[in-house]
């Protein structure tokens, strides 16, 4: 087997990391560029070339595919990333402020035993922390889906917003804010971010071809 054939096979292996539609349209021309730039006698892709192909392949899988001119969708994606960061902060806050919550609970219930407190942690605080962790993943998933133009994500995110609205109202009615005001503040910030994101994604038209696999023809 020739050096070029070895090298081409090596490049093809790395091009498999790209979204499926991309190599279909671009593999031949990228291979031509990679082979044109290879050193004489090179038999395998160099580490920096592999890193560059891997980095751009992963970025192409994750980045939004809506045009920048679609500002509403672009802003919504950014807001959802902000939401993920705030949600992560909320999860951390729950863990960090657990001592404050315990003090408040003990002040209101002086006879609280250790077993009762552990029941509160297991029954209420741990599920909230786990839910916040899941929500971080959900925010990022929605940012990705909206960025790829998936219309179903609008409904999914609107449902998430409705659930959180109900949860926030229930928390206020039950007086949970008395125990951890910071949680309420973060919850309110998240709710506002969700509200704006929902308004933006329903305000704009999302692409009907989320894969971005538009066929390339000269002039396209």
């Amino acid at each position, binding site marked *: 087997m020739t050096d070029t054939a070895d090298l081409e096979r090596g490049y093809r292996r790395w091009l498999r990391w790209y979204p499926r539609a991309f190599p279909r349209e*671009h593999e031949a021309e990228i291979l031509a*560029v990679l082979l044109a730039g290879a050193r004489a006698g090179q038999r395998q892709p160099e580490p920096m070339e592999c890193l*560059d*192909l891997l980095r*751009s*392949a992963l*970025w192409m899988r994750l980045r939004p595919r809506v*045009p920048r001119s679609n500002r509403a969708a672009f802003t919504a994606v950014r807001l959802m990333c902000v939401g993920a960061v705030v949600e992560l902060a909320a999860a951390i806050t729950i863990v960090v402020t657990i001592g404050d919550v315990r003090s408040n609970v003990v002040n209101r219930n002086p006879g609280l035993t250790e077993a009762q407190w552990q029941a509160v942690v297991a029954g209420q605080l741990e599920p909230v922390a786990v839910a916040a962790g899941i929500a971080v993943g959900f925010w990022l998933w929605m940012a990705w889906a909206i960025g790829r133009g998936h219309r179903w994500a609008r409904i999914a995110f609107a449902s998430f917003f409705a659930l959180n609205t109900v949860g926030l109202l229930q928390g206020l009615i039950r007086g949970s804010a008395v125990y951890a005001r910071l949680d309420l503040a973060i919850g309110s910030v998240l709710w506002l971010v969700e509200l704006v994101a929902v308004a933006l994604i329903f305000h704009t038209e999302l692409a009907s071809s989320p894969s971005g696999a538009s066929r390339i023809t000269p*002039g*396209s």
Partner: protein
Amino acid sequence: MTKRTMQEATFLILTALAAGSQHGYGIIADVAQISDGRVRLRAGTLYSALDRLRLDGLVTVDREEIVGGRLRRYYRLTPEGSRQLAAEAARFQANAAAALARLGLAGGTAG
């Protein structure tokens, strides 16, 4: 709200295409020449940028050729790409002029 500035690699790719259509390897070579060897684009970075620029309507595929059994796809600027490149170049020029003028005032001489 401030307008988002263009990344240097994007600016150089658009500059490489400003004089006419080019294929991928031609763009890489031209960008290296324009930047005096400072910016050396790799294929992954170039095609990721071209994909984004195409999606944003700044570049388009001009034509395709088979050379030595290999596909060459030529890209060119769209009118919007030319407009955005001109606007960015003017912005760089204004900033550079302001910096040079201030250096001249501060040091007595610019050079």
